[in-house]
């Protein structure tokens, strides 16, 4: 009996010890030069590697700030970030925020407003230089909660050689897209690799069809205007293109299968992130022999679905000064030129017009196209519960593509559920 009690006591004590050891961090020195540890969470993507490579340069100027980057796969990030927000001792002092999360995080007071810090950074920082659609996502209720890090706006990536052979130009309307896909459809090669996977992917891809058909997801007041004839037209055309010209059995395709299809020559084009172009044209990249044959154009209709990541400081960050020092340095025009020259995805207009970036990066025409893409672009959701809204709409869209329901039913249900989500189910 005594031994049992002792054992239980040890177990309980160990439990308390382990949970009690939260993150330990030096408090930032108030006033004076920022110093100490900055624990950052980022995604496991090439843009993160580029930031890692710039840390050496950063430390030359700020040797007292120790930036520790933890890179995780996307799926794990949100949970860890939210846990850090709610923990008594934060795990992270600086985070990157995906655009659907921005409104919810900001309105729950999880993020520090950055207005004053941006003002104090002065004219050299040039906040207006960030592409307007991108920076506006991080402006919630009149305050700025994030500084743009990199964009993932969509573009049309196509095989220039196949287009030339068929005498085609990049399509500017949905009809042109359909006919181009049909013309390029050969036995063994699909016209277009599509990504109708339930949830975020199908909505992200179909959003471009919606914009091209003249439709909108939300109006200026944030109300859901998805239930429209344009949306039905867009979904009809999306399904028509899928049924004629997408690779067989691609109903659940997301980013990776579509990329594999295009890079192995099994599809002639795809709608994907604009920075996939340099990756595909890289001789050491996934496309192998096909490297160099790809081109980037704006999506048909010219208005693209926009996604972006932002630097934000958690309200409970243990070292806000040092975190902001790092962000200000990294996102300043001069350093952003360096970052984009190393292959990072751009967010600043001055950077996209910079000759050094053209030379050391991926060429003038690429950056000009990206600038055009960003100029007229919109995110999928802006406002509360964006993540859930995207998921419910994406579920209905995928069900329509799968033939489980009609276009009418899908649009009606998607719009209704999106409205319910926005209102907040009680």
């Amino acid at each position, binding site marked *: 009996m005594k031994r049992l009690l002792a054992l239980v006591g040890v177990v309980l004590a160990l439990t308390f010890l382990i949970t009690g050891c939260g993150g330990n961090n030096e408090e930032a020195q108030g006033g004076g030069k920022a110093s100490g540890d900055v624990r950052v969470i980022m995604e496991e993507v090439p843009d993160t590697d580029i930031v890692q490579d710039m840390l050496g340069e950063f430390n030359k100027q700020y040797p007292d700030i120790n930036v520790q980057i933890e890179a995780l796969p996307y799926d794990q990030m949100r949970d860890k970030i*939210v846990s850090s927000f709610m923990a008594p001792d934060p795990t992270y002092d600086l985070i990157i925020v995906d655009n659907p999360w921005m409104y919810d995080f900001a309105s729950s007071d999880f993020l520090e407003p950055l207005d004053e810090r941006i003002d104090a950074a002065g004219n050299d920082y040039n906040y207006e230089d960030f592409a307007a659609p991108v920076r506006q996502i991080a402006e919630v209720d009149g305050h700025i909660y994030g500084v743009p890090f990199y964009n993932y706006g969509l573009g049309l990536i196509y095989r220039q050689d196949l287009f030339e052979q068929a005498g085609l130009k990049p399509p500017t309307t949905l009809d042109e897209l359909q006919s181009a896909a049909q013309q390029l459809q050969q036995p063994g090669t699909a016209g277009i690799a599509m990504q109708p*996977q*339930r949830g975020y992917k199908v909505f992200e891809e179909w959003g471009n069809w919606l914009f091209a058909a003249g439709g909108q997801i939300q109006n200026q007041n944030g109300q859901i205007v998805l239930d429209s004839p344009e949306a039905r037209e867009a979904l009809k055309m999306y399904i028509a293109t899928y049924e004629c010209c997408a690779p067989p*059995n691609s109903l*659940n395709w997301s980013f990776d299968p579509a990329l*594999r299809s295009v890079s192995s020559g099994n599809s002639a084009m795809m709608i994907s992130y604009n920075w996939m172009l340099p990756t595909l044209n890289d001789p050491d990249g996934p496309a192998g022999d096909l490297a160099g044959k790809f081109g980037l154009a704006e999506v048909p209709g010219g208005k693209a679905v926009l996604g972006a990541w932002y630097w934000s400081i958690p309200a409970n960050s243990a070292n806000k000064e040092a975190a902001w020092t790092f962000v200000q340095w990294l996102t300043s025009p001069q350093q952003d030129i360096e970052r984009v020259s190393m292959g990072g995805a751009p967010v600043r207009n001055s950077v996209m017009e910079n000759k050094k970036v053209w030379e050391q990066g991926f060429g003038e025409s690429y950056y000009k196209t990206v600038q055009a893409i960003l100029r007229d672009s919109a995110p999928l959701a802006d406002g509360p519960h964006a993540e859930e809204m995207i*998921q419910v709409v994406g579920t209905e869209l995928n*069900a329509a593509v799968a033939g489980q329901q009609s276009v009418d039913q899908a649009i009606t249900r998607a719009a209704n559920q999106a409205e319910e989500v926005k209102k907040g189910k009680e």
Partner: protein
Amino acid sequence: MLPLLLVLGAIVAYPLGYSLWLSLRDYEILQSTDVSFVGLEQYTQLFSDRDYLAAMRNTFVFVAVAVSLELVIGLALALTLRRQRFVRNLTRSLLLTPMFVTPIAVGLMFRFLLDDQLGVIPQLLDKVGVSIPFFNTQLALFSLALIDVWQWTPFMLLLLLAGLESLPEQPFEAARVDGASAWMTFTRVTLPLLRPIIVVAVLIRSLDALKVFEYVFAITQGGPGTATETIQFHVYRTGFQFYRLSEAAAMAWTLMIVVMAIIVVLFWQFTKGQE
């Protein structure tokens, strides 16, 4: 007794109790300051929630298909193995291995095995001229059930084989003496004697299959549409993707009630068998 109760209390009772308390409120992580007590509203809402009902339906279909197949295949294997003379232990060990692979790994494994672009199985089928879309709307749930069958038939096999080997010899001798055919022996002697074991095996396996999550998460994420959205996955989505914890807690508790009902039946059958 007391230390065990304390540990059980901390690890089991407290989270269960908190979950029940959560389900009586309207807690959402991203609006954690605006919480109120709503009584049984979360539960009553579920009866008109299309997605919840679809998830329950999908789960029950999955359980029915998977467990029936496991029973039939497990029984067939058990009957065959019982008469095996050579390499008995090695065969049995090999047949039991799927059970010991962690389910998420099995899910990922089959995701790539059945992948249209990369998978071995579609390649082999292609050589025979057959193209099966494993994860389209009609077949997705069935494909997941087959993966469950691959992993858990060994469990059925284990239980049924143990049951078969514990059966008394006399009824079989009597049947042989009376000149009964193999089929008659099977249906009139084996099955009735084996019935308690079968019931227990089916109930235990059903309880486990109700919790199916890993295969859905690894392969289909509930799609296409809502074809493979099982209740456990739906709870996960509602609670941890949409952050509506109270609703998720209520859903989890309805599943808990179903599970408890099955356990009651299980114990009743078990004690009946002991008489």
